């Protein structure tokens, strides 16, 4: 199936004359060398695909280029090099009109500090994209009310943003981004500005919405727990480049670079890795007894692993078919941190 977003060798440089600099730049120039030349590599040679219905989480320290990359996807930034296709269309080739249409029909975005219009009520904020599309007052009111209800803000339609708490304001931001029923949903650290308890609640809320709506999502966070809770795949960025883009299991079990390893070092791996992630090819070994579910996290298998008598445990996929075996020792090492 064709990816919804397909980025190939994307560059975004900030500086006086980025196009020219990039054209004349020798290959494999590093981030620091580029900076010494007076440019900042916001995004550095990134290639990544996002599949339909997939949730890609982008992670990295602050300043690593996460926001910049996502703004390239929606062409809030014009990229300096490479190509970005959305639904097979090169977005850099769109004229202003087509770009506006693309955003009006396909994209929604949620911002870290909400980006609400202070002079509009909750309902007017949510209806804003519909208003820009030129929908009539009645339809847009109906639709806005529907989304406001979806995010649990009914009863506050007439409030102004400054009369709401942070969590409620972000609900407005989420509702606004959903009003046009976008196919692609960008969220730039949507919960970072909220305090931990509310954050947890909003994540649950977000998972519920995602289950219901099944959108293609690019989600930025710098919180690893958040990434692990949400991600199908995680892309880890450093200095504008993607260090590794993989499933959470792979990132934790097989970090591609030293940086990623350091990054994941303090994670409680048992909470991340699934039985499938530890499974090895059978290679003719004899398997006995009932298999464990490959989708189960090692942490959730803890009790069973401790009481287990077999050294080699079969692992099954969602249909119950055995796909490999897991060494009990590997699993226990992961669980007890002796790895």
């Amino acid at each position, binding site marked *: 199936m064709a990816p919804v977003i397909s980025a190939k060798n994307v560059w975004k440089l900030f500086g006086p004359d980025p196009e020219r600099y990039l054209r004349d730049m020798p290959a494999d120039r590093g981030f620091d060398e580029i900076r010494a030349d007076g440019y900042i590599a916001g995004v550095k040679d990134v290639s990544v695909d996002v599949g339909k219905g997939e949730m890609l989480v982008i992670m990295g320290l602050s300043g690593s280029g996460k926001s910049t990359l996502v703004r390239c996807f929606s062409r*809030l930034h014009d990229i300096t090099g490479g190509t970005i296709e959305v639904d097979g269309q090169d977005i850099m080739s769109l004229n202003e009109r087509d770009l506006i249409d693309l955003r009006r029909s396909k994209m929604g975005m949620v911002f870290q500090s909400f980006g609400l219009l202070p002079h509009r009520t909750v309902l007017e904020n949510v209806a804003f994209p519909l208003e820009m599309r030129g929908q009539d007052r009645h339809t847009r009111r109906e639709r806005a009310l529907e989304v406001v209800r979806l995010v649990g803000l009914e009863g506050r339609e007439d409030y102004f943003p400054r009369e709401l708490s942070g969590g409620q304001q972000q609900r407005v931001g989420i509702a606004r981004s959903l009003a046009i029923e976008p196919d692609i949903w960008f969220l730039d650290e949507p919960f970072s500005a909220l305090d931990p308890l509310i954050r947890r609640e909003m994540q649950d809320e977000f998972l519920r919405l995602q289950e219901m709506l099944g959108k293609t999502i690019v989600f930025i966070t710098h919180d690893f727990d958040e990434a692990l809770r949400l991600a199908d795949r995680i892309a880890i960025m450093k200095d504008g480049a993607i260090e590794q883009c993989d499933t959470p299991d792979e990132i934790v079990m097989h970090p591609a670079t030293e940086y990623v390893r350091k990054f994941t070092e303090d994670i409680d791996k048992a909470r991340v890795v699934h039985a499938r992630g530890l499974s090895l090819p059978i290679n003719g070994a004899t398997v006995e007894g009932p298999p464990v579910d490959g989708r189960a996290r090692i942490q959730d298998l803890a009790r069973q692993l401790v009481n287990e008598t077999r050294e080699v445990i079969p692992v099954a996929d969602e249909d119950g078919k055995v796909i490999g075996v897991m060494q009990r020792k590997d699993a226990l090492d992961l669980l007890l941190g002796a790895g």
Partner: protein
Amino acid sequence: MAVTSTADIGGHTDQSAKRDPVLIGLLAAAFVLMAAYALGILPTWLYRVPEEWIPPTAEMLDVVFAFVQNDLGLIHLTRFIAEGPLEFLLDATANLLYGKRRWPYLGPIPWTAIAAATAVLGYYLGGWKMAALAGGTFVWTALIGQWDIAMQTMSVLIVAAPFAFLIGLLLGIAAWKYKWVDRLIKPILSILQTLPFFTYLLPAVIFFKVGPTAGAVATIIYAIPPMILMTTLGLKKVSPEVVEAGKMSGCTRWQMLTRVYLPAARTELLVGVNQVIMLCLAMVVLTAFIGMPGLGAKLLAMMGSFKLGRSFEIGITIVLFAIMLDRLSKAWVEKQPYHHEKGTPWWQQHAYLLGGVALFVIFYILAQFIDFFAEIGRRQSFSKGKEIDKAIKGFLAIEGVNAVTDWLRWFLNVKVLIPFRNSLLWIPTSAFILLITALTYWIGGKRPAIWGFIFFTIIAFSGWWDRSVITLYTVISAVIISMLIGIPLGVFAARSAKWPRRILLACDTAQTFPSFIYLIPAIMLFGVNDVAVVFAIVIFTTVPLTRYTIEGLRTVPPEITEAADMSGATRRQKRWSVQLPMALPTMAVGFNQAIMFAFFMVIIAAFIGTQDLGQELQRTLAGTELGKNIVLGLNVSLMALTFDLAVMSWAENRKKVLGLT
């Protein structure tokens, strides 16, 4: 650490200034020239630029203007605007407010109706206090018998302010959107802001007829610059996420501007509105000089015939209007939208609007039957002009008071002002220019010095050197005196917890008064002479000096004062070696403003009878000598700009050094 480093910095600049060869060279050259003049060996062309070397700038300008005006037909365009839409609007408001016999033939609106409606507006914006202020101002004006002249002033203000707002807004948007517009507008703005108001007045008179139209045009032009600045500032400050949210919602460019940027910049735009209104009021009062009837004209006439009681009353009216307009528009800035509970009936949601309209209608109808509610004639008014007159004159005649003012007048005139003026006039032009260059170099560095040199050389060749020097002398004397008052006052006030806020409030309020007002006490105390001029400027300029001294001292970061405490500084040491150096950049801003205010006031004071540029400028109004007017105006502007550049450059450098930016 921080403490020692600031002390180091202070010491460092002093040393480098002493050693700087450029500075020494400039000063030495100036002294050589002065010595030569004292010995009588200075060539005369170095003493004053000879008459025959002075280019006929004024005449050339007159030719250019005549060409633009008549041959290019600009006059037809401006006259069309003046006699067409602008005059139409002015006539309409004049009819409504004081019953001029023009379309729509409805007015005058009874004073009670206006007072009641504005009181409701005041209540809506800021509660009972604002209601009392707004209603009270109009009641006072009516009762004191100044309704008609106040409404003459307001009828121009009501037309001029929206125009200034709109033009400023559009130019501000253009400057924000296009770099080249910004680059074009910036220098023009800084000249406009230092140009004496007489220079706004004359072109207005020539191109737009005498009377309210010219007054309105001058007022509009005068009030535009801050609106431009506030607009660009506000648009630049809109949070990037709000902008991105707008783009992601699929806004077109037009939608971005009208639905995202402008509403999000609401606060700054409203601050701009406040400034536009206040500048309009200040200018509309001054248009008295070109024969615009109203509060200003009345004040001018009363002061001219030394009717101090009536002047005083008009002064209070002007001050009340200033405070009211300022507070109401500021309350509007603060006013945030809030939601009504679900199911609030519509009449409740619009209670204020309905209440205001209802009261307006009730008083309108009442006024048809009860004359007192419609209009208060001169006989019925409560004016106590004569009595106040007697009281003031009686007070001034008291032995002690009289002796004090007389002595002050004598001392300032004979011992300070006249000797100072004569010595400035004694200095040869060439030496003077070098001294100014040295001063600006010492204060602001190379760039301001180059500009100072160029500007004063231009002044020397303008043919108005002596009058320029007299203007400068008045400004310098006044600013020095107000520094002696304002800075200690600020330092003293900043020490306590309560006083700063009170004094800042007083300064803020005083700054909203139209400058004209400051002439009243000066004339009351000193009559019509040089001392009164300096006194008026001193009151006017002490305000910003005090204000910024307090502000500067209060914004010294607490870590730094704490560090000083930890290193065992006494309060005195702390003030002199820590707080003051840190506060200096902010104080410099106040100093700069004081100088600009002084240049502004010195021109107004021409009315009292001075011998400076202001006097000449005022004369050009009568003779409609546009070229000369512009030359004189530019002279004032160039002097003001010289100081502006030097002081601001100093403050910038200092802030950078102290890491305050």
